[in-house]
């Protein structure tokens, strides 16, 4: 603050000094939006720079001598509440990592599980979380083969934090990632968006809607492998977790250096999710999902991709939502239901509920 600054114009056109840099970590730095990407770009990527990390993908694919190509990824889970409609932190920790492997087109094989437990956590809660992880691993076709447990003092954690890392095997020759995206590619989603984020928010904030909105949490490897087995030349995959569909589209557009156009009217979103978003002033395109992904495929493979996804997905309805419209100038354009185009940007920080 600058109580001594005298500004003769303060009663006329007044405006604040800029907050140019945050000197502390904000919650928004983990929100999947622009602040988080700044953090990755300015802190982590330069420090750890190497070619494999430079793939900039959900999981990194690498070769080991002459053996098969492997995919490797890691993710930490800090969700509150630990149990939510449609899932819990344990199931999330398994599927989250399995899904990152799937986004590299890999068949998930093995996971590690690291637990940071807070003193005072009910053993019963831990037991339920672990049981849930075991059942999720079976469902996703992976084994948890190594792990670690630490306990921190009460107040130093939030019940339980889980880190999982995962290894999968790549059984195809495709280079799946933003760099393979081409002009003319068609973009599909495997289902309706926004359920997970709204489900968590409703429990966390004690919001009651007429129906309980359950998380869309599910393992995605089966759907991805079905696409590959059908012979579809998958160019890029991305799960739409934090930051939602808008962040996923922007990440790929930036990474590929392409212009992308999606049609608002084609993007599936359930009425209850949209209603909740209307009330809170959120855009469903920015809301997190845990069982939804984008697939970029050549236009000639789009129909087959859609029918394949429809065949293996019973819980939600896949849809074609847009296409890659140009190369050179990266960005995402949304064609509104009323016709005019608008920019679809990444979320800035956190989604904050509106005042009115």
């Amino acid at each position: 603050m600058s109580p001594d600054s005298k500004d003769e114009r303060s009663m006329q056109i007044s405006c604040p000094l800029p907050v140019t840099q945050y000197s502390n970590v904000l919650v928004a730095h983990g929100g999947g939006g622009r602040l988080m990407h700044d953090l990755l770009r300015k802190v982590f990527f330069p420090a750890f720079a190497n070619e494999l990390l430079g793939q900039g993908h959900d999981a990194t694919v690498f070769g080991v001598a002459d053996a098969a190509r492997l995919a490797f990824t890691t993710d930490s889970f800090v969700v509150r509440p630990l149990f939510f409609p449609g899932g819990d932190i344990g199931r999330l920790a398994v599927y989250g990592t399995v899904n990152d492997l799937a986004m590299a087109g890999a068949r998930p094989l093995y996971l590690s599980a690291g637990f940071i437990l807070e003193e005072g956590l009910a053993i019963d809660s831990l037991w339920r979380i672990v049981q849930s992880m075991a059942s999720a691993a079976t469902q996703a076709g992976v084994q948890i083969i190594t792990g670690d447990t630490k306990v921190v003092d009460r107040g130093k954690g939030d019940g339980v934090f889980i880190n999982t890392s995962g290894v999968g095997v790549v059984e195809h020759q495709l280079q799946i990632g933003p760099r393979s995206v081409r002009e003319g590619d068609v973009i599909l989603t495997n289902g309706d968006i926004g359920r997970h984020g709204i489900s968590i928010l409703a429990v966390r904030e004690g919001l009651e809607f007429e129906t309980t909105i359950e998380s869309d949490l599910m393992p995605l490897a089966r759907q991805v492998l079905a696409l590959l087995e059908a012979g579809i030349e998958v160019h890029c995959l991305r799960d739409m977790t934090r930051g939602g569909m808008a962040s996923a589209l922007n990440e790929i557009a930036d990474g590929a250096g392409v212009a992308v156009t999606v049609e608002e009217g084609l993007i599936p979103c359930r009425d209850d999710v949209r209603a909740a978003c209307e009330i809170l002033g959120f855009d469903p395109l920015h809301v997190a999902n845990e069982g939804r992904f984008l697939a970029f495929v050549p236009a000639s493979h789009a129909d087959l991709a859609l029918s394949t996804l429809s065949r293996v997905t019973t819980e939600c309805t896949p849809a074609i939502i847009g296409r890659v419209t140009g190369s050179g100038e990266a960005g995402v354009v949304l064609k509104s239901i009323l016709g005019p185009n608008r920019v679809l940007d990444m979320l800035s920080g956190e989604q904050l509920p509106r005042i009115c």
Partner: protein
Amino acid sequence: MKYVEEYRDPAKVEQLTRKIASLVTRDWTIMEVCGGQTHSIIKYGLDELLPPRIHLLHGPGCPVCVTPSEILDKAVFIAAEPNVIFCSFGDMLRVPGTVDDLLTAKSRGADVRIVYSPLDAVKIARANPEKQVVFLAVGFETTAPANALAVHQAASWELENFSVLVSHVLVPPAIEAILSAPGCRVQGFLAAGHVCSVMGFHEYEPIVEKFKVPIVVTGFEPLDILQGVFMCVRQLEEGRSEVENQYARSVKREGNRPAQELIRKVFQVVPRKWRGIGEIPASGLGLRDEYRKFDAETRFVVPEVNASTGSECISGLILQGFKKPPDCPAFAVGCTPEHPLGATMVSTEGACAAYYRYRSRKQ
């Protein structure tokens, strides 16, 4: 989705835009008062659907935008005091004061909480008698009844640990200030539907009488806004200036009487400083003497801050309809939602943030 989709029907939108186009014989400049309307206009591209002779200007009706930085400095100061739980609507957390925003205060250890209703803050106060709970009571007439109710409830529960930091503003004085400013280009207004659902629209009748401008009480969905524009243009073309009500499904002339009584019971009309515009007489609400003990500014010793101004930002001119966001040299260059120079870039309802989010920055 019922009650939403009907108002976003593409066929009806096209019908209405054609009707507007057939009505227009010359250039008209209309200001939508409310930030929610600005957001809808830019999000759906309604301005692009209108005939080029209709010029929409974005008004001062974003409560986040017009809250003066001094109030945010006070909020950050109080939040950092020991033993305080500071409660606010979500989108106020990212609005910078002179130096910091509340999110930064939170990252330094202040207990800053988002609430969805001021009554939740009262509940927090009741559950934490050893803490001082402060609610940032900002907004227009829309949020005033709930804020008044919170203070009233705290008084009836005799809570000693609840207070509000008040910076309430009123719409009619702002419209008068805009119309009285030299060089004002606004020929008609779309008034904010939700403000009128509380206050009614009789307050606008003297303004229409005095300044001879049409004011149409308008809702927030695409069809609402286009119908509001249609009604406003029809008045302008016919040389009429009246208060008309497009938002009749929510708004009555007299408004919501019990809500108004509650506001009058707790608050009184006071002069207020508007961020970007300056002080407007009788343009805000402050606590009445009977409720003064719930005023956070008397409960805490808050240093007076004279907010300094950023030179590049033109948000004041934007809020008064003299400029549009892309006219600003800092727009999307030095000023972005991550690092806003002015409040119109912070709130999702601010005109600059709406342009930044939804319009190409390469124009």
